[in-house]
């Protein structure tokens, strides 16, 4: 996991130092937003979830123990908050509608406009399939395949055994890959027809 921050800053924030807490927010809000976005696929809602996550952290930070990584704790909070959000009435309505807010992405390399369109399309498909998964499968898939956490980190963040992580990952990947296959077959057919 990334975004390490000096434990002294975290402890100062735990004692109520708002400036120290601001540093904690600045160091971690990026990945918290990213995970939230993977769940809801909507910029405004992801920002709302991020805000909720840090308010929860502020309230609970006095119970923080240094033997637990803050990032692990944050992954747990953001996953639970996102799943609660999706369970809510608004979240259920959101599932049925296609959001126009596609969010902003930071690419590793500058993409061509075509690549960017393809990415948005791919992201949409993966999100649609992920929405049909069970909460556990969805959480495991997002943290492992979309956020790139190690299986051990996923297990710690979600309070699961490694075997459970693998099992959920298998079911999630089976569904996602099946959908991706269909998407690519559809994309290749017009090309083969032209040839």
């Amino acid at each position, binding site marked *: 996991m990334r975004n390490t921050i000096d434990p002294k800053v975290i402890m100062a924030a735990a004692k109520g130092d708002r400036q120290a807490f601001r540093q904690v927010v600045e160091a971690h*809000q990026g990945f918290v937003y990213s995970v939230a*976005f993977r769940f809801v696929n909507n910029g405004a809602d992801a920002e709302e979830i991020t805000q909720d996550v840090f308010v929860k952290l502020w309230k609970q930070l006095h119970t923080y123990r240094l033997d637990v990584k803050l990032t692990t704790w944050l992954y747990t909070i953001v996953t639970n908050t996102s799943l609660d959000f999706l369970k809510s009435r608004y979240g259920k309505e959101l599932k049925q509608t296609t959001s126009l807010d596609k969010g902003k992405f930071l690419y590793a390399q500058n993409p061509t406009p075509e690549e960017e369109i393809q990415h948005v399309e*791919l992201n949409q498909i993966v999100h649609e399939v992920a929405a049909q998964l069970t909460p556990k499968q969805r959480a495991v898939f997002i943290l492992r395949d979309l956020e790139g956490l190690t299986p051990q980190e996923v297990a710690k963040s979600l309070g699961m055994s490694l075997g459970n992580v693998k099992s959920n990952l298998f079911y999630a990947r089976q569904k996602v890959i099946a959908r991706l296959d269909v998407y690519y077959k559809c994309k290749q057919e017009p090309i083969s027809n032209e040839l």
Partner: protein
Amino acid sequence: MFIINVNKNQFLMNCKRIERSLYVYQELNEMELGIVDQHLTTCKNCSLMLKKLEKSRLLLSQIQQAKPIPENFSGLTGVIMQAVESEKKVIKNWSITFLDTIFFRVSMVLVSVILVVAFISEQRLEQPSMSDSSQTAEVYLNASLKRKDWNYNSRRQAKGKSLYACLNEKSCTSAKVLKYKKVRI
């Protein structure tokens, strides 16, 4: 372990079982990898399946590499800090922290257990035991006392009859009635 009931010497594995493992190929441990790789050298179908899955994994890694970022990064920090300002902070209180420790909880449980045991044992000492002979004697004496009381009260009731009632009864032998009868005769 993901592959259930795998015997290391088991060479020919069920393709279906292996297929399940191919989906989590990156997550397999050394032993599991050894078994799957051994199978892949002999099974063309499973090797093709792995290649297909690897392609899909590459697509997913493309999504992974593009990180969603907030429209206004510093703006989001400001919004979060504003929300935090409006929340009441739970400041670490040492007395509350002490009350929340396991040591305190365990000692409280022990104290309450001791108090309950002490209360029960005291109750048992006060209660008369049926097997105790001295207590039985006391109960017997108490019963005889009650009988004495009953005899005394019934005699008093007999004595307490009115003069008029006694005159009508021949059996009444009260001294006053006899005197009255003598005077009248």
